[in-house]
C-alpha cells in the first residue's frame, strides 16, 4: 500500500524545468540561436602573404598598442566571422581595446574567458597601489610594482623553551590525593583516631578556591578492633581563597555529609555524619605538574546514630600530592 502510494505520488510530481546553462558553457544538446549578421563577411584573403606581412600572423606583438589597421586586419584574418563569441555571451568591449594579441584574445574568447581590458587593469592597479599613491595624479604616479606572490601559510615555529626560571603557576593543583587524620572519642569514651584517604578535585583554582573532596576513612587507636574497624565515607565541598604562586597559601572552609558504620558489642549500625571545618595550609609547586599539599585546621564531625547526635571537635592535619 505504501509502495503504491509512493508510486502515485512520484507520477503526480511534475518534472522540474531544465536548469539554465552555466555561464561560459555551451549546452551541447541545444543548438545555438541564429545570429543575425551585423556586418558582411570580409572577402576571402589570399593565402599568399604579401611581402610586408610576416609569415606567421598568429603571434601577436608582446607589447604596445596594436594599430587599428593591424588590429582590424588581424581580426579580419583570425577572428571568427561572427562577432558573437562561441559561448553565446555578448561582446561587451571593443576589440581594439583588448590587451594582447588579437589571436590570444580570440583564443580566450573561444575558451569562454573574457580578455582583460584596460578598465580591468586600471581597477587592478588601483587595488594594488598604496592608499597614499592613489590620490596622486597619473603623471606623477610611479609605475605600479609588480604583484609579488606571498606565502600565506607560515612554516611551523620552533618550540620555545624557557632557559631561565619557570613562571609561577597561575592555579593550584587539579587533583590532590591526600591523607587526613583527626582524633575524637567513641561512645565508650575511648580515643578514636580516624585515618582518611582523600581525593580532591579543584573546580576553581585561581584566587577563589572551590573543590570537591571525597574521603574514605577507618578508625584507629584504642577503639579499633582490627579487621572490624568502624569506617566512614564523606563527601565534602571546600570554598576558600588562595594566592597562586610557587608556594600557594590558602584558607578554606569545608563541609560535607556522609555515612558511618559503627560496631559496638558486635552489633553493626549505620549512621549519618556531617562535618564542618576550617583548614589552612599551602601548596608547594615542586614541578610543573607536581605539588605537595599541607594543611591543618579544625574539624567538627556530627555523628548521628540510634542513640542520637554527638559531636566532637578536633585538630585535623592533611598531607597530599597534587597534580
Amino acid at each position: 500500500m505504501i509502495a503504491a502510494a509512493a508510486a502515485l505520488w512520484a507520477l503526480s510530481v511534475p518534472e522540474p524545468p531544465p536548469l539554465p546553462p552555466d555561464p561560459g558553457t555551451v549546452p551541447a544538446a541545444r543548438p545555438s540561436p541564429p545570429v543575425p549578421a551585423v556586418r558582411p563577411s570580409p572577402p576571402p584573403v589570399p593565402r599568399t602573404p604579401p611581402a610586408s606581412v610576416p609569415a606567421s600572423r598568429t603571434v601577436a606583438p608582446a607589447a604596445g598598442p596594436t594599430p587599428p589597421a593591424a588590429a582590424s586586419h588581424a581580426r579580419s584574418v583570425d577572428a571568427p566571422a561572427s562577432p558573437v563569441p562561441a559561448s553565446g555571451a555578448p561582446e561587451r568591449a571593443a576589440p581594439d581595446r583588448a590587451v594582447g594579441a588579437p589571436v590570444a584574445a580570440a583564443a580566450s574568447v573561444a575558451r569562454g574567458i573574457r580578455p582583460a581590458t584596460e578598465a580591468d587593469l586600471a581597477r587592478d592597479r588601483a587595488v594594488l597601489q598604496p592608499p597614499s599613491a592613489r590620490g596622486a595624479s597619473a603623471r606623477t604616479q610611479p609605475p605600479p610594482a609588480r604583484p609579488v606572490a606571498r606565502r600565506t601559510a607560515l612554516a611551523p615555529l620552533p618550540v620555545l623553551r624557557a632557559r631561565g626560571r619557570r613562571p609561577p603557576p597561575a592555579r593550584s593543583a587539579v587533583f590532590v590525593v591526600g591523607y587526613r587524620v583527626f582524633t575524637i572519642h567513641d561512645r565508650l569514651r575511648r580515643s578514636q583516631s580516624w585515618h582518611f584517604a582523600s581525593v580532591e578535585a579543584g573546580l576553581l583554582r585561581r584566587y577563589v578556591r572551590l573543590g570537591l573532596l571525597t574521603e574514605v576513612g577507618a578508625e584507629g587507636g584504642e577503639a579499633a578492633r582490627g579487621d572490624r574497624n568502624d569506617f566512614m565515607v564523606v563527601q565534602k565541598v571546600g570554598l576558600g581563597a588562595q594566592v597562586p604562586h610557587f608556594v600557594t597559601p590558602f584558607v578554606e572552609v569545608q563541609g560535607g555529609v556522609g555515612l558511618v558504620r559503627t560496631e559496638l558489642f558486635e552489633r553493626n549500625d549505620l549512621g549519618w555524619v556531617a562535618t564542618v571545618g576550617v583548614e589552612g595550609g599551602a601548596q608547594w609547586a615542586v614541578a610543573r605538574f607536581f605539588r605537595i599539599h599541607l594543611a591543618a585546621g579544625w574539624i567538627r564531625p556530627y555523628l548521628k546514630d540510634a542513640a542520637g547526635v554527638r559531636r566532637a571537635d578536633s585538630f585535623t592535619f592533611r598531607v597530599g600530592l597534587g597534580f
Partner: protein
Amino acid sequence: MASPSPRLPGTVVFAAALLAGCAEPPSPGMRAWTSDDGAVSLVYLAPPWTEVSAGPDRLTLRIDAEVFGVAFSDAPPTHLFSLAPAGVDTSVLDLVETIGRGGGTGSESAAGSSGAAPPWVTGGTTGGADPAPDASAALGDPFQVALLDASTLLSAHGGKVDEAVTRAGDDLPVATFQVVLAAPEAFVRGFYYPSARGVVRVVFVSIFDLRSPDVDAMVRTIDVEGRAIP
C-alpha cells in the same frame, strides 16, 4: 608601651565561648546506674543495651539481635548482662538458658553432676591440689564464687574453659573467668567483686567472644565500693 587593643576583651570572650563550645559533650545514650546504697555503680550505653530489670542492688541488661537497625524477630538476644549480689536466689544458669532459648538444661547436658569443679577450671592458678568450691564459704570470697559458677556452668552445659579463674587486677581481689559452653553455644564471662555485704557477681553471656574491647570498656566503669578494674 602600646596600649592594649580595645578589641581584646571581645576577643577573649569569643575565644572562651569557642573553647566552651569545643568541649566535647557526653555521648548520647550513656546511662549511669547506681545501687540504692550507692555502693555499686555502672555506666552503660543504651542502645545497644536495653534494660530488662532493675532493682535496688541488681541490674539486668540485654542487646537484641539487629543488623544495621533491622531487628531479627524471634531471635534471642546476642548479649546478656547481670549485676547482682551472689546469693542463693541468683544463678548464672538462668542467663544461659535465656541465650539458648531454653536449650540445654542442666539434667540433659550435664558433663558431671557431682558439683565439683573439674581440675582445669582453675587453670593452675591455685597450684597444687584442685580446690573444691565450698558453697557455704563461697559467698564471701570472690574466687570461690567464681570457681563455683564456672563449675556449675560446665557441669550443666559442658564446654571448656577459655580463661581460667584469675585475678582481674594486680592489686584487686577481683576474680574473672570465661568459659565456652557447648550446648547452647555461648560465651560466659564473669567478674566477682568483694563487698561488705558479700560478693557482687557481674556476668556477661553472649554468642560472641566476650574478651573484646567493648566489654572491657564497660567493665572499667563498674565501681564496687571504690574498687574498679583499671
